């Protein structure tokens, strides 16, 4: 492969052996071993609490650990003095948007501060600053205080400050979490460019599974363990199987049957995805058709499994998945007949919210019907949470109106409030109370009659699979279970409308799937209207309808499929190509007029109207320039492609105004 030239046989830059880190009784990392070679981008992928941050901090020499050894540039990190010796060659960016920066200082002052800290000479500083600022397109904002930058810009400034002393090893802890897709794309391009220019090595962690293909090699981490490591292809190769995608009208019935047989079944919007392990695509397809005899299959399609499927299969294989609960699809939990799902549950009409200096939400309108899962997709700071707060009546809108079940929540009567459930961002239940105490509290607050309380609690406990942890303190629960408890609390009174603010942020893939299973059940069987926010592109596929939010505005609003179709009609199909050397290829393509060509890991994505014509043109153009084209294929656009396109379109429109 083209990459081998970059990876040499020199001793590894970082060598970790049997790394153990404990926080009191909790084991954050339990025997982690890995080697990072010079010049590669090494990925740590896993949910919150997997041990990624502990490992990165230990490598950066800012966290002591209990067992194992870490070598950085051949120096064993066993004391503060030892860590000091290599710190000059390291750049470390901690987790959190711009947490290492100073909010009151301007962009330039921040950079100068870090340069002085690292004793960069003025001449070198001026040179590097010019280059990095141009690359990150921050040069227009030199005098702007950091606190007034958008999330994506903060993260880019953080990167500049980390790179200002030209470190040989850069350690970036979740640099792209909650960042908008365009900034995310910029971020990866900058990183790749820098790595090619100098012999820099990067260790990058992420909670997004779909970022995996951007890494040369990676470790999949879960609960302090490395579940798998190596190149993405190698990991996929180790977990043979087929992903079968089905379109079925009788989704609920099909799900019930499939779940009896397979562990990895997922309802994604109108589709069902099943991972069938160990068999060829033909055999997998046949197995499923046999299982679903009698149910009409509208469409069946086989695909290569994604890294997320492999990860989940590995977790099951290592028995890290926890106990599987009863399928909620077979339970009914609200009293009486579910209402028909045709009424409009939530309406946002021209909602505006102004903070001191800027407009957080700008004329946002949408409708959510009963029985529909509606997603607000956007980066941190896009205004998603503010929209939910205005709809639920926590924050008064500056302009416009929002109604829930026909009532303005700020003046809604108790009977209206009793019909909605709300789960706020972060974990906001009472951590010093047990699961049962939390549920009882919310049941009583929402006016569940005394006789029915125990019965209701039992039902949501069963629905959310909380049985084994009933008497535990909420604060002691792992992330995934906490989210389900929060959901259970929002559900205990049987609401008809559900607001969920980033319900799955930081939750592991298995936890996320369980969570979605419950949501799908609520919407399909109980006809609950669900409005949720997320910054996971892949998760947004689950929603029936989506509103893409960027900088306070809704820039597109439709079903995921329609969003993709619209993209294909407007801008064409996505061409996915691999070329060597990849950066020259990117440059050449931009010169050829493919302005939206973007680096995606080691591959390039671009949008073309006519696939055949463009393929031919690219082949000719690249071969003229001695760039080797390894492969080129058209690909169905992802929601990320849609989002990036819409953001850029919006920016172009605003620029011309």
């Amino acid at each position: 492969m083209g990459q081998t030239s970059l990876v040499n046989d020199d001793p590894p830059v970082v060598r970790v052996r049997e790394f153990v880190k404990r926080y009191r009784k909790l084991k954050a990392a339990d025997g982690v071993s890995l080697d990072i070679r010079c010049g590669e981008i090494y990925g740590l992928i896993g949910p919150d609490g997997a041990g990624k941050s502990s490992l990165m901090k230990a490598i950066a020499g800012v966290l002591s650990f209990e067992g194992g050894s870490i070598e950085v540039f051949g120096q064993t990190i066993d004391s503060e003095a030892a860590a000091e010796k290599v710190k000059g060659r390291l750049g470390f960016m901690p987790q959190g948007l711009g947490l290492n920066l100073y909010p009151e200082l301007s962009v330039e002052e921040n950079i100068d501060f870090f340069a002085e800290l690292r004793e960069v000479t003025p001449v070198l500083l001026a040179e590097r600053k010019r280059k990095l600022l141009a690359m990150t397109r921050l040069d227009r904002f030199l005098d702007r205080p950091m606190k007034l930058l958008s999330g994506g810009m903060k993260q880019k400034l953080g990167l500049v400050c980390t790179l200002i002393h030209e470190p040989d090893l850069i350690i970036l802890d979740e640099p792209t979490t909650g960042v908008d897709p365009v900034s995310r794309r910029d971020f990866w391009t900058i990183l790749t460019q820098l790595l090619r220019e100098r012999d820099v090595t990067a260790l990058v962690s992420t909670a997004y599974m779909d970022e995996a293909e951007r890494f040369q090699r990676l470790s999949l981490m879960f609960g302090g363990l490395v579940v798998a490591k190596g190149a993405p292809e190698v990991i996929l190769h180790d977990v043979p199987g087929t992903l079968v995608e089905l379109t079925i009208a009788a989704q609920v019935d099909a799900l019930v049957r499939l779940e009896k047989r397979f562990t990895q079944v997922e309802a994604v919007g109108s589709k069902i995805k099943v991972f069938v392990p160990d068999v060829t695509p033909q055999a997998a397809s046949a197995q499923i058709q046999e299982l679903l005899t009698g149910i009409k299959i509208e469409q069946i399609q086989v695909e290569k499994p994604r890294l997320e499927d492999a990860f989940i299969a590995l977790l099951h294989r290592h028995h890290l998945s926890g106990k599987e609960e009863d399928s909620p699809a077979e339970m009914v939990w609200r009293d009486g007949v579910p209402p028909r799902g045709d009424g409009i549950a939530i309406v946002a009409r021209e909602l505006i919210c102004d903070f001191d200096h800027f407009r957080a939400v700008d004329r946002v309108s949408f409708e959510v019907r009963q029985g529909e899962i509606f997603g607000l997709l956007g980066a941190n700071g896009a205004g998603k949470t503010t929209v939910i707060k205005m709809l639920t009546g926590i924050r008064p809108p500056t302009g416009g109106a929002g109604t829930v079940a026909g009532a303005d929540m700020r003046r809604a009567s108790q009977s209206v409030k009793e019909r909605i459930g709300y789960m706020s961002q972060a974990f906001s239940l009472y951590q010093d109370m047990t699961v049962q105490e939390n549920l009882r509290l919310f049941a009583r607050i929402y006016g569940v009659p005394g006789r029915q309380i125990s019965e209701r609690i039992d039902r949501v406990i069963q629905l959310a699979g909380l049985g084994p942890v009933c008497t535990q303190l909420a604060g002691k629960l792992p992330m995934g279970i906490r989210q389900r408890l929060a959901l259970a609390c929002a559900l205990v009174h049987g609401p008809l409308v559900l607001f969920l603010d980033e319900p799955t942020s930081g939750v592991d893939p298995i936890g996320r799937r369980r969570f979605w299973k419950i949501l799908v059940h609520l919407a399909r069987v109980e006809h609950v209207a669900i409005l949720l926010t997320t910054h996971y592109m892949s998760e947004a596929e689950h929603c029936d309808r989506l509103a893409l939010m960027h900088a306070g505005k809704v820039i597109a609003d439709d079903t995921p499929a329609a969003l993709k179709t619209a993209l294909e009609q407007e801008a064409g199909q996505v061409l996915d190509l691999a070329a060597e050397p990849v950066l020259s290829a990117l440059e050449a393509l931009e010169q050829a007029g493919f302005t939206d060509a973007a680096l995606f890991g080691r591959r390039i994505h671009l949008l073309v109207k006519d696939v055949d014509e463009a393929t031919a043109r690219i082949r000719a153009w690249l071969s003229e320039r001695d760039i080797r084209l390894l492969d080129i294929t058209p690909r169905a656009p992802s929601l990320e492609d849609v989002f990036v396109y819409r953001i850029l379109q919006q920016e172009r429109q605003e620029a011309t105004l």
Partner: protein
Amino acid sequence: MNSDWYILRTRLGSWFSRLMAMTAKELIQFGRDTLLLFAIVYLFVFDTYMAGNITMQLNKAVVVVHDADHSAASRELIYRFRQPYFKLGGEVLDNHAGQRLLDQGRALVVLDIPPDFAHDIKKGTSVDVQVQVDASNAVLGFLASSYTAQIIGQYGFDQALTSLGIDERALENVPMVRNEYRVWYNPNQKDTWFMPISELLVVITIMGIMLPAAAAVREKERGTIEQLLVSPLTPIQILLSKVIAMTVVILLGTAMSLFFVLHGVFAVPMKGSLILFFAVTTIYSFTTAGLGLYIATLSRNLAQAALLAILVLMPMIFLSGAWTPPEAMPMGLRQAMYISPLFYFIEMGYAILLKGAGLDILWDSLLGLALLGGLIFGFGVWRFRRQFK
């Protein structure tokens, strides 16, 4: 008519049931907070106990002597500086040494007896002794100098009587004004009664502000307040549940302190009606809760709330008479005391526990507290509600 009544009753019932659910939640959370539990026990039990052991009297103040006479007469005077008020700290050879001990804070009083002290007394001429007092602590200095003056005066009087040949019994025929006084309510003038009561009332004030403030700020800090606001709860129910729960905690703490420490250890008589005392404490606790809730609306986290609470507490205690009696205040501040709720509480607290006073005497103080408390609580509630509008 009947059905209207029924609807009203169910509405009231569900309103009350929600309030009780929230109050129960506050109490559960309080019970799980070991640090807070420790603070309650520490302040209500150990702190009031310690306060009972502190005295405002001179306690073994060091007296250093420069005795240039070394006679029986000088020794007699020196040995009149006795415990518990004084303690002899030895002798110095010259005035400078005495001065230095005062400077270093190793002596409070330096007594300078001139040469020929005994000789002059015997001769019948008047004699001066010099007393130097360290008055850097004004109260101690004042006590030391007045006690010293009393001791030396008594000594001079005794010496004068002896030299005139008048004995004790003959004194009755000498024309003299004698004072006979009665000390009411605390006949032995025990600090162990006065101090712990005063401390208990201060502790109630601190906790009465801090507990509701902390409970309200914690909801904000953790983001749980939003979860509650979306629910059918009204802001009144949210804050009332905190005030009720924290008042229960404070009453329990007060009972603990009153029965185990004040009555149990220091034998404070508790003459008045305990029901009245707890009723007054409840009204007072609602007043301080109003302040606490107001503080909670101003602060974003617990640290800010604690800092603000100190800003409120200091003048409140200073203007209450807990540390300095009203009689020692300048007139301006004495008027200002009427705005410190603790002033009324302290007045009533002493009156009920030591004097056995009832409503017939205390009605005006109670009215003052109730009015002030109602005002403050109403203000706190108004601010607390307004922050969500």
